[in-house]
């Protein structure tokens, strides 16, 4: 009787070889078929299995990436009948000499810095608080994770209501009970970016917390025990044990959040639309306006997308170097 059981890696390999051999020696009708099957080596089968993925990857990722790189050197509108016209580096030159691009880049940088820094502090803090188990800690952890599971546009919609100076709950909670003097979070140029940062921190700090919790739970207790025996205080233990041990995972969280912050689009569109004026216009919002919104400047927007990509790769490289140093240390 055949009893299914979970196979180990070695067993799987043996089984696959065994099945291939059986397929080869099995008597089949027709003279040419066994010869054809014998040609299917393990490597060929592996390639055959990988091939659909490679084809999909080329079609869905590699080709659009290369094609959009080509488009970025052309004057082209996707809704026009006219074919792309090669303009060389003109699109890149125009973008890099346009002050509105530098403005939106500055806005994005400011947003990323504020948002990621606060998420790191809040997320790490929450992880430290939830590190030790207590009654209801599982439920609280789950509830804290809820924001990051919501759709950004839903989050933006209800935070718009929360921020509303007429009937939103935030201002009364902060003690602003006079509607005439209470802050207009989304309409005030000095507050609008902060409003988006607050929502982003609320939404994504749980992600940082989750990774930090994983890092914290992997720290062996004996390190703290040894430190306690040596009468190391809390701060020393945090600085010399907790932080270095969590650092690799914390850096991964920070890397992901920085990349996401540089691509921030949905929360901005949902909350302020880039306004007032262009105070909260991130690069992604500018890219959207250039690529769609009646402009459909596909060549220029592709060039801008590549500039953003290069910046994100550069920042990611810095993080990865730091990550490697942390791991090496």
């Amino acid at each position, binding site marked *: 009787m055949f009893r299914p059981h979970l196979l180990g890696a070695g067993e799987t390999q043996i089984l696959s070889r065994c099945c291939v051999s059986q397929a080869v020696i099995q008597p089949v009708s027709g003279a040419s078929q066994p010869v054809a099957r014998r040609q299917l080596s393990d490597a060929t089968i592996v390639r055959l299995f990988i091939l659909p993925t490679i084809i999909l990857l080329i079609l869905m990722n590699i080709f659009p990436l290369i094609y959009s790189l080509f488009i970025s050197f052309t004057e082209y509108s*996707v*809704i*026009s*009948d006219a074919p792309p016209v090669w303009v060389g580096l003109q699109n890149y030159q125009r973008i890099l000499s346009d002050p509105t691009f530098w403005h939106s880049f500055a806005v994005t940088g400011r947003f990323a810095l504020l948002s990621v820094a606060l998420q790191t502090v809040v997320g790490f803090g929450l992880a430290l608080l939830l590190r030790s188990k207590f009654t209801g800690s599982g439920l609280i952890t789950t509830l804290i994770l809820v924001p990051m599971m919501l759709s950004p546009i839903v989050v933006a919609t209800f935070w718009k209501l929360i*921020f*509303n*100076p*007429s*009937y*939103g709950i935030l201002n009364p909670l902060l003690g602003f009970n006079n*509607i*005439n003097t*209470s802050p*207009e979070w*989304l*309409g*005030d*140029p000095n507050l609008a970016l902060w409003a988006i940062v607050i929502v982003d921190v609320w939404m994504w700090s749980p992600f940082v917390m989750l990774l930090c919790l994983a890092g914290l739970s992997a720290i062996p207790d004996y390190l703290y025990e040894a430190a306690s025996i040596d009468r190391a205080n809390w701060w020393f233990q945090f600085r010399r044990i907790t932080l270095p041990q969590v650092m690799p995972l914390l850096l991964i969280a920070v890397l992901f959040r920085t990349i996401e912050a540089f691509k921030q689009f949905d929360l901005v*569109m949902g909350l*302020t*639309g*880039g*306004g*007032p*004026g*262009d*105070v909260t216009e991130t690069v992604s919002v500018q890219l959207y*306006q250039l690529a*769609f*919104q*009646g*402009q*459909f*400047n596909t060549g220029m927007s592709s060039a801008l997308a590549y500039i953003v990509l290069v910046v994100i790769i550069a920042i990611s490289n810095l993080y990865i170097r730091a990550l490697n140093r942390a791991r090496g240390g």
Partner: protein
Amino acid sequence: MKKFSLLLALMAVLALMTGISVRAQDVTELTIWWAEWDPANYLDQLVDDYATETGITVNVVQTPWGSYFDRVAAEWAAQGTAFDMVVGDSQWIGQAVTQGHYVDLTEFMNSNGITETVTPATLQYYGEYPAGSGSYYAYPTEGDANGWAYRKDLFENPDEMAAFEAAYGYPLAVPTTWAQLRDIAEFFTREDEGLYGVGVYTQIDYDAITMGFQNVFFSFGGDWYDETFNTLGVVNTPDTVAALELYQELYSFAPPGTNNAFFAEMNDLFINGQAAMIMNYFAFFPALANPSINPFSEQTGYFSMPEGPTGLRYAALGGQGTSVNSYISDERKQASLDFLLWFAREDVQLKWAQLGGYTCNIAVLESEEFLAVAPYNAAFAETMTFVKDFSNIPEFGSLLEIVQRNLHAFVVGGEGEATAVMDTMAAEMDAVLVEAGYISE
């Protein structure tokens, strides 16, 4: 061999029959794309009559406004046939015509006398391109423009009337000038009571704040460019600066939190009792006339745009015209034209108006029946005689982005001086038009 020949002959006959049947087969289904809103639902109801009369089913496919243009543009790019007709925004026409997405309807509309049945302004802005060319690409379908809704109970309250007259020196009534509207807005702004004078468009996402501002801008003598596409000294004049200052002042009489507001927020302000007057497209007024939605429906009045300091009077145009997709087969084009011919009939237009659609048919607009259908129809019929639109050249998207950004920064963000804002706007628009080749540097 004989059997083979027989088989070949049989196959040839079958192929011929199939071919004949395909050619003879009538179009049984047509698809119209429109944005997701009430008028599209009314059209969906109306086309049932067409199915009854002709046996041709017409599907009205709706897409949310936010992604409507993107979806249509993607279909244009693919030269797709997902729709036979599209009810397109007035601003799209330049792009669609120059890039060959719309069928030329000039001959069809002239020979069937359709051009004589609709109001000249709607024919010009929804159907004609280039302006004044006499070439038509769309049948004016949903005439729409900005108008005002106001609280009659406040305006006709004797105490309020007396207080207003004492404060401003003239009686409280429906404003006929922008100066009066400003005074009334100021008068009804009572922050302690949670009541504000007006609700005005401020949304930055697409075209809302521009549409709202245009009502003042055009009436103060402004324009986006002259006949030679010159913007300098046309966009930025002392009068247009005054118009911008007035619009910012109106925003200061609007409820807090309306920093990114469009049609939905306008109706909300009114229904919540926060605003004495709101601007909105007429297409959104049916909700205000509905007592199950608006508690003030019985006390709600409607009026058309007031005039500027020199007597000029304009309302920002909304609305759309129906165009035929140039990429569909000739059979489907003919079937689409047949549908448009039916839709343009006076009795169908009357039914369209009765359902809630805003007809552009002159006879229907002037009929007592139409004026009596809804409380806002009289204001609508009057408004459709002085509408004016934003640019509809293919570069309208770039021009619109400039206006939206600068207006929002000044009106909502309070950044800069009105004169500098108008100067910047004119210069940036000029750069776009120079680059596009409309004017030489």
